């Protein structure tokens, strides 16, 4: 446990000692600001953050998480520091979880900063807090899954650009895979709808907290983290 925390702490300090954390949070907030003002600046706008959250999921989540995770393991492989890290008395999974934790803390903190928009809504009207809170829960779960995909991509290569691109591609695929359902039809359509990242998010934004949807994100996250750990371990049998 202590190893996980010290690895997370180290990654956090790297995020903050470089412009990375500030740039990522800044871009995130600037874009969500645009989405928010757009969603409330409509003739019949309602006092909710549903529009904001939907735009965040479709436009920001495929991009920001893989950029945040792209260096976490790829850089270690490139610099060769992974060799020192993995010859220290830490388990492979502690390395992966520690790095995941650091990226999640930064992204979730950024996401929670957007609560400022909810405060604006509360000043001018009375938004229904149920869907707001469940929406934030859904958004945080969404972060865990996209970050774990990004981390897997980072473990596969020593090249950060490749890592970010693969992560971006996979997340985007899972974002729009539900749209393919209409094309293929039949039982395949059901499967595609069920593995779609966005399909499970809508209920949260509407105020529905269903354990099935929570479980979906947790299982997806666990699966990608598991694959990441196996990928780090793969040096043993390569």
């Amino acid at each position, binding site marked *: 446990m202590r190893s996980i925390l010290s690895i997370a702490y180290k990654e956090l300090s790297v995020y903050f000692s470089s412009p990375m954390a500030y740039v990522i949070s800044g871009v995130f907030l600037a874009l969500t600001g645009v989405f928010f003002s757009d969603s409330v600046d409509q003739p019949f706008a309602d006092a909710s953050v549903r529009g904001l959250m939907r735009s965040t999921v479709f436009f920001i989540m495929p991009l920001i998480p893989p950029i945040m995770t792209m260096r976490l393991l790829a850089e270690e492989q490139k*610099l*060769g520091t*992974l*060799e020192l890290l993995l010859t220290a*008395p*830490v388990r492979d999974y502690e390395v992966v979880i520690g790095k995941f934790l650091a990226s999640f803390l930064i992204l979730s903190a950024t996401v929670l900063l957007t609560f400022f928009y909810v405060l604006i809504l509360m000043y001018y009207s009375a938004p229904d807090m149920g869907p707001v809170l469940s929406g934030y829960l859904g958004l945080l779960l969404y972060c865990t899954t996209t970050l774990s995909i990004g981390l897997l991509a980072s473990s596969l290569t020593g090249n950060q650009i490749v890592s970010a691109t693969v992560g971006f591609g996979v997340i985007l695929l899972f974002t729009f895979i539900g749209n393919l359902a209409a094309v293929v039809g039949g039982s395949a359509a059901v499967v595609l709808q069920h593995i779609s990242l966005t399909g499970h998010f809508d209920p949260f934004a509407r105020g529905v907290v269903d354990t099935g949807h929570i479980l979906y994100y947790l299982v997806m996250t666990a699966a990608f983290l598991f694959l990441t750990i196996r990928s780090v371990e793969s040096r043993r049998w390569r």
Partner: protein
Amino acid sequence: MSSQIMIEANHLTKYYGDFPAITDVSFAAQKGEILGFLGPNAAGKTTTMRILTGYMPPSSGTASIAGYDVVSQSLEARRHVGYLPETVPLYTDMRVKDYLRFMGTIRGMQTKVIKRRIDEVVQLCHLEEYYVAYISKLSKGFRQRVGIAQAVFHEPDVLVLDEPTIGIDPIQVVETRQLIKGLGGERTILLSSHILPEVSMICQRVIIIHEGEIVAVDTPQSLAEHLEGTERVQLEITGPVSQVVRVLRGIPGVQDVSFTDTGDRHGTYAVISKRGSEMRANLAKAIVEQGWGLLRLEPLSLSLEEIFLRLTTTEEAK
């Protein structure tokens, strides 16, 4: 000094795909010993070290550090090793002190101990002026020192140093060697190098590895005796080979005679004898007495480098 075995390798073999990087490598190092690991590039030094430090398991064979198996008791074994890989991988976007602190915490050291050790290793590795600097700003030589500092940081029983003096300037090389020598005593050190004088300067025992196999294990002293205690003479003689070899072997002081067929009529003989025995006169006399023709007689100096080359050249006929 106790005779506890701190590093043990038993028949280690490692394949990369179909290619054997090392084959049947076995050796052991006692507590406090500085063991040199000598071989040309791509001989299998790094592979062996990666197995010993628990980075990857061998394809077959076993290894242990301080009595802990590097595969089945990997974490315990890793706790007892400090490792400096050849490329000196460091987090360049961290400060020296933060880096050392991080390496301490992931090795499970207490905060108090980490504080004390930072002061100690900074002094030991002469990093006083740089310990708040970012690693990216340091020269190669200072990065090397940071690398050594992290390797000794948790006071490991065993140090594994992969080419610790490669790529740094000559003055720093001398300093680094002194530093490593100073680390011996309590610690067991395995140091790889492809520079022979370096190994004989620092190490008590030398393992020579070539193409993944151990070709010799000896003390630098006896390697040096090989070097200083013998002289080599090369001869070209007309006469029946077997008889010539027999006669040359019979001369007192001759240790070894080897014949190389050069393709022309005579071929050359190499005679190894004790240094200072003025063998050339005796050789010439014996050959002339037999009535053979002495076409060439040439003393050869045999440096340690040549022994190394001899030991690691596959063309060498035994």
